[in-house]
């Protein structure tokens, strides 16, 4: 008996791994499709379900909103100041606003909002759902004739989506206002030129990529932890917990979305 390297065995292992990987993503996509159908069905928004969705929305966005907004405002002020002072120092004042809006609004804010919601709400939510499934509570619900996908999963996904969009929109608004104040000061004299500059940056392509990116971030953040909770992730040869594996998967997906958006914006 040989214990050496076997190409056949390695290839079989590789094929199985690829298949498992594809199956895992297929499960995620399938659950996403089911949830999309449920989200677009009016029957999912009965009085009780609507209440559940609203409560989850508040849980996702409400408690973290003031803290996140304040933190983002501080972060914005610091970053805008750095960019503006650097641009002034190099005599490139006309590009200061452009750089601020592009760096903050287009790139950083959607990413930070998505990460915040993921850490604050969707990953703990996914973990909770995973524990419910492991404990058989979802099965019990199903036996009682209550579809757990529409009663337990859909509100969390919708809440995650909503929270990312709300935080991103609010932070973008705040960032635009702070950028105006940082560049022009407390005066209305710069409004026309500022509007023109913002209009130049947000051309149709950039606006489309920006909204698509934010939406995809929101979907990734809301869906992946939940989808991972509903399937058995094959344990790897590591001590990483299921939640962390899901988190890593989510980060990878967000990275792919970010790279795609960067390619779309700057190439």
């Amino acid at each position: 008996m040989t214990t050496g390297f076997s190409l056949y065995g390695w290839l079989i292992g590789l094929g199985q791994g690829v298949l498992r990987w594809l199956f895992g993503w297929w499960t995620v996509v399938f659950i996403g499709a089911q949830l999309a159908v449920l989200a677009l069905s009016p029957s999912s928004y009965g009085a009780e379900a609507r209440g559940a969705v609203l409560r989850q929305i508040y849980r996702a966005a409400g408690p973290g909103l003031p803290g996140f907004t304040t933190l983002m405002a501080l972060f914005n002020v610091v970053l805008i100041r750095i960019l503006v002072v650097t641009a002034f120092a190099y005599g490139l004042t006309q590009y200061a606003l452009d750089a601020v809006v592009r760096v903050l609004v287009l790139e950083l804010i959607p990413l930070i909002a998505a990460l915040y919601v993921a850490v604050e709400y969707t990953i703990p939510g996914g973990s909770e759902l995973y524990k419910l499934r492991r404990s058989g509570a979802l099965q019990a619900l199903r036996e009682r004739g209550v579809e757990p996908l529409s009663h337990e999963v859909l509100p969390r996904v919708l809440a995650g989506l909503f929270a990312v969009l709300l935080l991103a929109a609010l932070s973008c608004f705040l960032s635009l206002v702070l950028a105006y104040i940082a560049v022009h000061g407390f005066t209305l004299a710069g409004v026309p030129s500022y509007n023109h500059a913002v209009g130049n940056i947000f051309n149709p392509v950039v606006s489309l990529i920006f909204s698509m990116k934010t939406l995809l971030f929101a979907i990734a953040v809301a869906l992946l932890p939940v989808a991972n909770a509903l399937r058995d992730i094959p344990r790897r040869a590591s001590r990483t917990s299921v939640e962390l594996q899901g988190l890593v998967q989510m980060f990878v997906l967000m990275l792919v979305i970010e790279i795609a958006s960067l390619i779309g914006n700057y190439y």
Partner: protein
Amino acid sequence: MTTPQDPTPPALPEPQAPPLPGDGEPADARGELPPASRRSQRALEFRAALLLILMALLIGASVLYLMWVRGAFEATQKLYLAADDSEGVVVGMDMTFSGFPIGRVSRIELVEAGTVRIHVDVPVRSAHWLRTSSVFTLEKGLVGASRLRAFTGVLDDPPLPPESERIVLRGDVSAEIPKMVADARDVLQNLNRLTEAESALAGTLTEIRTFTGRLNSAKGGLMAAVTGNEADSKRVAELLDRTNQLVKNLDTVAVRVDGVVKKADTQVLGKDGLVTDAQAAVRQLNTLLQDVRQTVVKIDGVLKEVQGVASNANQATTNLGDLRADVESSLLKIDALITELNRKWPFAPKEKEVKLP
């Protein structure tokens, strides 16, 4: 629990699942929340609805704002600019007038003539800056993007009609660099040629050095440098001495001339000088002339009288002529009468001649 055969590492301990709402409760108790809890849930839902409304407002306002700043609610007119190269022109770039954006490139296309056609949307409220005499330029600096600019020299010209087509002039700084470098190289070559050892400039400088050397030398100094040898410079020095002597002599002569002039002045302009006498003579001459004038006036009167006499004589001469004609006619009549008498009188003498007294 893990067994020795289990290849997977031990997982982290799984915490207990939280209770589901309604899970484990009696069926009749499900959904029957206490009044306080129900009220708090309603409040929660209300806040969530407020958040939803806030998000809808934010996104709606953002979309409207972006449409507004992109000029979606603004009437525009088209302007077509023809260029030979589209390099540096991008869709969305501004066209500026005096630094202010008054239009935006909406499209770039290659037309059949092989030129580039740039479509510019100009808001109607800014279109009055563009006149028929406006000039459009596309400038490409060393740093930064290209700039499309409009210049209007005469703002009283008729406004540019919509859908006009104009030629855009290119001003490319980077394209000028190779030409500038070539020119600079020529200049440097010329400079090298000027400064090299065999050049005319170097020769001139050598000559100047020799000249200044001679100038500074003890043999003759400036004169020797100018004349070329020491002997000539000495002659020049002698010439100068003689000239000096001559000037001195001239000075003496001038003093003498001055004395002569003074004497002449006394004789001519003095009290009994020539000029005084001449003045008296002139005065006498003046009196004499006045007398002569009076005499001439008298002569003039005499001449007038003579003229009258002459005219009278002339008149008398005319009258004499008439008298002579009358006498002649009378004689002719007498002659005719005598002839008649002779013809009729038989004793008439043969001579028919009448002897006048």
